[in-house]
């Protein structure tokens, strides 16, 4: 492949022109809104009046003093961390199980994948009914009354409830990516390892994991970023409750903007979040890319 410096002027112009539409969309859809958001974060605008005052970095100072900023951030980080591990393990496990050439795997893959097609809003409503009344009624019918399955109604168990729901919905989606990666691993590699006496665990950790590392990178980065943006599920499943125990960071920003009518402060929160997510994505990519192996 030619280096950019050795291309002719005409070729460089052509490449620039081809990149221009994408660049335009990026500037209009990403950079300008971020710039506007940053500008609002330096004001005390109420969201409904025509006037506002420039307050400098006061909003950034205020958010650091808000207890809810920390509780929402902490909830979201724990959710993202637990979700990433669980979803990857479950998705990879399902992919390995359904990678067999046996009857019923196609149907099973469809069943496992289907929940991700349902809107998160509907998923939240369904599961809040399941945990709130349907499961308890079923248990009551079987005479089990001393175990509570209302996971979403207590601060101590609401995180578990939301993780169950989110993994039920999305594990099938990531499973497909792992499935594609597993199917791309040449079988001769496993045969050679088998001949050399490598057992199933050794083959898994020394062959499978390194060769599907690009898929692991994609899944981990996507699940982390998706988990940090969790909102619709929480709106209908718990509303951020009980109390504030399941208020995600996006929900906190939304409440600051529209319930408290402080969009300036909400913008400051959003800017802080954008920087945090950017740093997390960059760190993840750097660490994970090093472990990728290509044949």
């Amino acid at each position, binding site marked *: 492949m030619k280096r950019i410096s050795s291309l002719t002027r005409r070729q460089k112009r052509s490449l620039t022109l081809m990149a221009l539409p994408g660049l335009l969309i990026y500037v209009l859809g990403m950079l300008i809104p971020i710039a506007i958001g940053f500008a609002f974060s330096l004001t005390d605008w109420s969201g409904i009046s025509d006037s506002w005052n420039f307050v400098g970095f006061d909003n950034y100072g205020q958010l650091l003093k808000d207890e809810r900023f920390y509780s929402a951030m902490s909830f979201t980080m724990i959710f993202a961390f637990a979700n990433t591990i669980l979803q990857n393990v479950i998705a990879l496990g399902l992919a390995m199980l359904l990678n067999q050439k046996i009857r019923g795997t196609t149907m099973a893959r469809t069943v496992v994948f289907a929940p991700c097609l349902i809107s998160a809003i509907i998923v939240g409503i369904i599961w809040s009914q399941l945990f709130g009344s349907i499961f308890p009624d079923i248990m009551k019918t079987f005479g089990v009354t001393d175990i509570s399955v209302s996971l979403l109604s207590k601060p101590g168990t609401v995180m578990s409830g939301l993780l169950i729901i989110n993994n039920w919905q999305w594990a099938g989606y990531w499973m497909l990516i792992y499935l594609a990666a597993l199917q791309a691993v040449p079988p001769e590699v496993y045969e050679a390892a088998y001949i050399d006496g490598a057992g199933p665990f050794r083959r898994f950790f020394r062959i499978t994991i390194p060769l599907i590392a690009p898929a692991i990178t994609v899944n981990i980065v996507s699940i982390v970023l998706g988990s940090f943006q969790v909102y619709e599920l929480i709106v209908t499943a718990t*509303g951020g*409750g*009980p109390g504030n125990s399941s208020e995600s960071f996006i929900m906190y920003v939304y409440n600051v903007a529209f*319930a408290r009518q402080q969009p300036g402060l909400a913008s400051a929160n959003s800017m802080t979040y954008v920087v945090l997510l950017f740093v997390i994505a960059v760190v993840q990519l750097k660490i994970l890319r090093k472990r990728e192996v290509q044949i």
Partner: protein
Amino acid sequence: MKLLNKVPRSIAVAALVLSVSLPALAQNVKFFSWYGTETETYTGQLIEKAKKMGVTLDVEPVVWDQMQPLLQARIAAGTMPDLLDFKGQDIATYAPAGTLLDLTGQAWLKNIPDGARANLKVDGKEYAVPYTAAFQGVFYNRKIFEKFGIKAPSTYAELMAAAAALKAKGVTPFATHFKDNWNIGNITMQFAMAEVFNENPKWGDELYANKTSFEGTDGYRRVFQHVKDLADNSWKDTFSVDFTEASKRFVKGEAAMFVTGTWVNSNLTIDPTFDYGVFPFPGAKAGAKLIFEPNHTWAVSAKTANKAAALKVLEMVATDKQLAATVVDEAGAYSLINGVKSDKKPRPVDKDIDAAKATNNIIDVSIGNNQIKWAYQEEYSKLIAEWLLGKRTLDDALKGATAVRTSVTRAK
């Protein structure tokens, strides 16, 4: 040939005439309607009647939970609807920000009682047409009360004695639905009207002026304790129960009392045999009043380009008794338009409400809601929920409620 030459010219003239006259014939008014999600018949009638006046009403139905963020997004984008239907308590937020048209002096406002309009004025000016009212208090199952010989309590001590008596008979005293944070917010303000605002109608102003606090006000300490008393005398799974489920259980007799408002009517009247009444939530002393709230409230955008058309529709809404009667029937509401009567059979609770109105035993909750707006109530409700679930102490919850005043700003 001459005839053919005339045809294009006549078409052009006709097009010119139509282009000028058609917009004048039908004016478009964008209407942001909370009612649009509850009352299809009413909305249909409203659109038809507006059409006859030459106004095309472009109704956007909005679910109550999404009202505020959607409206604020519209205001920010400069696309605020011409006509709005929101809550009485929203006037104190939007009017001072200059987003609502001043309606002071409009003749048709006299169709609504002064008492309903008084607490919605901002700096002496009127920006709202309160259309329907909600009444709030302790709704009770008459059959259960009669069965166990319980009379409507007039003091808090009597209420708790009634609760204890019901519990002893195996009846859950109170229906609650704390899965909905707004339930805690609503009942807390009901209690506060009896325990705090009855004694000091300016308590909220004093809070924002740093002259008082939640933890320093005995009335609010009692208010928070009342919420706990209700939780202790309600279903164990209240944090899993939503409004619909609570209404269902109440109708089935799984609780004797339900501290709520007349928005519950449409859920309770699904069973036409269910007999229920309402009494005011009692305070420490006797003399509590039934709470009245201007519920659906109309207003016009200050920046509307269709002012004449929007005001035409508003005048129609404020004077058309048949239209107002439709919303009474369909939404289980109480009209604030003078002289509106429904043809339908009265609801079981209506006789208690009529009795309270006749003896002027009602109090406007706008007194409290205008000072401690809904966003504030939602914030401290979460603190109350955390206290009830053992994550905070009562003092923490009260101090946290005071601290909310720095994050929920008052209208500028």
